[in-house]
C-alpha cells in the first residue's frame, strides 16, 4: 500500500525517516543556555516566596542530614531494633556470666527436683496443722 503517495516521494520519505535520527542527535547536542537575567528572575520569585510568612517547617529529609559515625555503625548492624536486641543479649550474657553457680542451681534446682521424692513430699505436708492445737472433742 502506498497511501496515494508517488513512489519517488515515498522513497524520499523513507530516506528522510532514516536521516531524522541524525537530525535528532544534532538537536540533542544543542541547547539554549540559561541566561543570567532569566536566572535572576527565577531566583527572585523563589526568594519572594521564601520571605513570605512561612508554614511550619517540615522535617528535613534523612538524605539531607549526613549520619554520624555511630549512626552509620548502627545502620551497618541493622538499625536501632537490631542494636536493642544486641544490647539485651549482652546484658543477659553478662548476668549469666557473673551470677554464682549456687544461684543458678537455686534457679534450676526447682525444675530438677520436680521429679524427686522430695518434691512429691511437698504434697504430703499437713496444710492444716493449726487444727492440732484445737481442743479435742470440742
Amino acid at each position, binding site marked *: 500500500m502506498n497511501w496515494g503517495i508517488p513512489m519517488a*516521494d515515498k*522513497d*524520499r*520519505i*523513507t*530516506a*528522510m*525517516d532514516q*536521516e*531524522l*535520527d541524525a*537530525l*535528532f542527535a*544534532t*538537536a*540533542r*547536542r*544543542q*541547547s*539554549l*543556555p*540559561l541566561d543570567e537575567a*532569566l*536566572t535572576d*528572575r*527565577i*531566583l527572585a*520569585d*523563589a*526568594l519572594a*516566596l*521564601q520571605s513570605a510568612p*512561612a*508554614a511550619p*517547617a*517540615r522535617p*528535613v*529529609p534523612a*538524605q*539531607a542530614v*549526613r549520619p554520624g559515625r555511630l549512626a552509620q555503625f548502627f545502620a551497618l548492624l541493622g538499625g536501632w531494633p537490631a542494636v536493642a536486641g544486641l544490647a539485651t543479649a549482652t546484658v543477659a550474657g553478662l548476668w549469666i556470666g557473673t551470677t554464682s553457680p549456687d544461684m543458678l542451681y537455686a534457679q534450676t534446682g526447682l525444675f530438677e527436683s520436680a521429679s524427686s521424692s522430695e518434691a512429691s513430699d511437698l504434697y504430703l505436708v499437713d496444710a492444716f496443722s493449726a487444727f492440732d492445737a484445737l481442743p479435742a472433742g470440742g
Partner: protein
Amino acid sequence: MSDMAFDALDELDDDALLVLFANGDGTAARLLTRRLAPRVLNHAARLTGDRAEAEDVTQEAMLRLWRIAPDWRRGEARVTTWLYRVTANLCTDRLRRRRGGTAPLDSVPEPEDEHPGVAETMQDRARMDALQQALDGLPERQRQAVVLRHIEGMTNPEIAEIMEIGVEAVESLTARGKRALATALAGRRDELGYTDG
C-alpha cells in the same frame, strides 16, 4: 554558603532539595534552578518554537515549583516528571492563545559545540530550523511525544507518566509524529544538503 556546602547539597536529589527550599534554604533554590531550569527552557523552546515564550514558560513553571514545594510529597512523583507536565501545559495554553502566529527562526538553540566549520554550522543551522518548523506543524501531543522521545531521550514509560497516557499510546504518537516529520522534510532534502543514494 561556602562552595563546599554548595557541592555537598548538590549531591541531594530534587525531592530533598525541594524540602530544603520549603524550609527556607536559599542554596536549594539556586541548585534547583541550575539543575532544572535549562531543561524546562529547552523543552519549552521545542514545544513553542519561540525563545521569548520559552523563557516566560520557564519562569512560570519554576514559580509553580516554588509554590508547590511546601506540599510536595516525596516519592509520589519525580520532580522532573511533574515539571515536564507543567511545562507542556503552559506551552499548550500559550500556543492556543497565539493561533496563526509563526515561529521566529531564532528560536532554535544555537550550536554550542566543538568549533565546526562555517559551512557545516550553516547547514546544521538550516537543518535545525527546518526540524523546528516541521515540529511546529505537528499536532501538540505528537510534538510533545516526539520531543520527549527523540530529543530529550526519555523512555516510553517515562513519557507515558508525563503525558498521563499508556505506553502504547506513546508509541503510536511518536511513530506517527516521526512519520509526519519525515513527510514534511522529504521535500526539502536537497535544500538541507541530503543527497539520494
